[in-house]
């Protein structure tokens, strides 16, 4: 928000997102202290933080650059597989190099995807990009399910524990704070990115792609860059996921998890970053609580379906949309009239 240009009359009312961010951060910091007696809740909380990375990754694509990715889990899952394989075949799991490796894998893979789907002589249609990511994730899931070297349908289990120095991390408060630190860093980086000069272009694209293109911006290149960065975050999440679960399977890179990520971000409120985190936390927590209710449990996916439907039909701004004004949500860089123009 540092570059806010005008309107001194805008008070706190216009700056709800920082407040939400601070509250979420505070909650995340103290959570484990409240759960000392119940390790399974810390496990749940860690899981939420990891999945938040995936949700943020999706939000960067859709909320900030209009790429509907039905395959975000692909980068998540492949990175998870890579660290699991490195652990299995090389016996190596030191965080200082496997986590960057996972990020590199996510980055490279998503860059290749972006290059294929987005770049080229003709600008692709939104539909092509959406179906392309869907197909990629679907084909990858089916390929991995049949590939013996990576455990086929069984996936890879007993993933080597993540190491920092001589310290082996099992699930628990230590793992939680490590993930939290990485999440805060990733969040900060994403936040900086979408609010920098680069983010200004993204905001402009959201308002009017043609106009930006007319100004001479190569919008497909911008989209490809943000898609690659999102892939990097997904890769980091995937590696943490594999280490934390001790398991990675074909289900972790298919459209199933990808659409779950879509749901997290849209439910929380896309285009805000923090909405993705809130959405993940809410959905995962509700699902955890409802799981005790046997009558409902079986129909939990149905409920999720209704939630998604309700969000896209009635509340496209998600939960965060109840608190955050439209101008702030979009980022208020694009000009005065953006409220009137729909994408």
């Amino acid at each position, binding site marked *: 928000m540092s570059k806010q240009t005008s309107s001194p009359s805008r008070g706190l009312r216009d700056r709800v997102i920082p407040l939400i961010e601070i509250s979420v951060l505070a909650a995340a910091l103290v959570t484990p202290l409240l759960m000392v007696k119940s390790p399974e809740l810390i496990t749940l909380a860690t899981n939420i933080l990891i999945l938040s990375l995936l949700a943020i990754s999706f939000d960067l694509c859709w909320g900030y650059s209009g790429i*509907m990715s039905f395959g975000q889990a692909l980068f998540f899952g492949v990175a998870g597989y890579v660290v699991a394989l490195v652990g299995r075949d090389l016996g190596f799991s030191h965080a200082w190099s496997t986590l960057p490796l996972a990020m590199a894998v996510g980055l490279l893979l998503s860059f290749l995807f972006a290059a294929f789907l987005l770049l080229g002589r003709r600008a692709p249609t*939104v*539909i092509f990009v959406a*179906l392309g990511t869907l197909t990629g994730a*679907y084909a990858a899931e*089916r390929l991995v399910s049949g590939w013996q070297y990576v455990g086929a349908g069984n996936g890879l289990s007993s993933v080597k524990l993540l190491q920092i120095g001589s310290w082996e991390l099992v699930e628990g408060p230590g793992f939680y704070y490590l993930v939290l630190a990485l999440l805060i860093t990733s969040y900060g980086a994403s936040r900086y990115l979408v609010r920098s000069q680069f983010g200004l272009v993204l905001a402009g694209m959201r308002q009017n792609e043609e106009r930006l293109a007319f100004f001479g911006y190569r919008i497909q290149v911008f989209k490809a860059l943000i898609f690659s960065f999102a892939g990097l975050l997904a890769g980091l999440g995937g590696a943490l996921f594999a280490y934390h679960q001790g398991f990675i399977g074909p289900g972790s890179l298919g459209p199933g998890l990808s659409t779950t990520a879509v749901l997290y971000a849209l439910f929380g409120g896309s285009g805000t970053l923090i909405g993705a985190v809130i959405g993940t936390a809410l959905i995962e927590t509700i699902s955890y609580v409802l799981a005790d209710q046997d009558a409902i449990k079986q*129909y939990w996916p149905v409920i999720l*379906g209704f939630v998604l*439907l309700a969000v896209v*039909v009635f509340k496209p701004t998600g939960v965060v949309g109840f608190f955050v004004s439209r101008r702030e949500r979009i980022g208020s860089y694009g000009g005065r009239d953006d409220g009137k123009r729909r994408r």
Partner: protein
Amino acid sequence: MLEIVRFAFDILAFTAVMVLIVLGLGVIASMMGIFNFAHGELVLLGAYTVFIAHDAGLGIWWGILLAPVVVGLFGVLLERTIIRRFYASPVIAMLGTYAIGLIIREIVRGLLGGQYRSVPEPWDGSWSAIGLNFSIWRTFIIATTVLVIAGSWLFLTRTSFGLRIRGSLENPMLARACGISTHLLYTATFAFGAALAGLAGALIVPLYQLSADMGLRFLVQGFLSVMLGGVGTFEGPVLGAAAIGALASGLPWVVPPVLADPLVFVIALVIVKLRPQGFIAGARK
């Protein structure tokens, strides 16, 4: 020679299944610009109708006749309540229809108790010629597919209703100005596409087991078929489906089936990338 006849029949049979499934998807995508993620579940509903009819002792033929009607009516309901909100944004339509599909699928899963169910063909067994056996039901599906394609094509090109549909597709504003109710046409088109899906489900369920995921299996292949053939025409998706069907059933003859499966997607996606307008360039991009 025998070999070739055999090969041709098998590929034709699967291609017919593929075309049947894609037809409804293609009609909705081409005419309305909506990629219906719930299409697999409409197929499932058709199959489920047959199962219910069979279970209730009504007979499978009744089920097969009822399925397009039931699913078509369901399509009317869907279009009236939800789908019409999505015309402005095709991407939001994907999410919305995905949610609808999820809801239907999981409800059916609950109703089936997660089990696989088998539904017998009304005509089982096989007929033989030149020393080869051909499944009667697959032959029936091939014949029906040809009839349905011919019927739909005549309907869209030779009737005034079809003319109005094509007119609204070319230029909705002008169509409205001419006094055509595009709203009504969209409802009718969606219902027609849904009914085709229902018919497809009803016809293929004897070939495959009834389970909640049966329609989903064909969804991504269906999308690729539509893209491959070209959105905006009637013939495009049919051709695309034929290509995908032939590819999916033909590839396992030359490469291991496990590899053939993802390969189909990769090949199709690359072709779409190289020729985004599809086999037949249509009116709508």
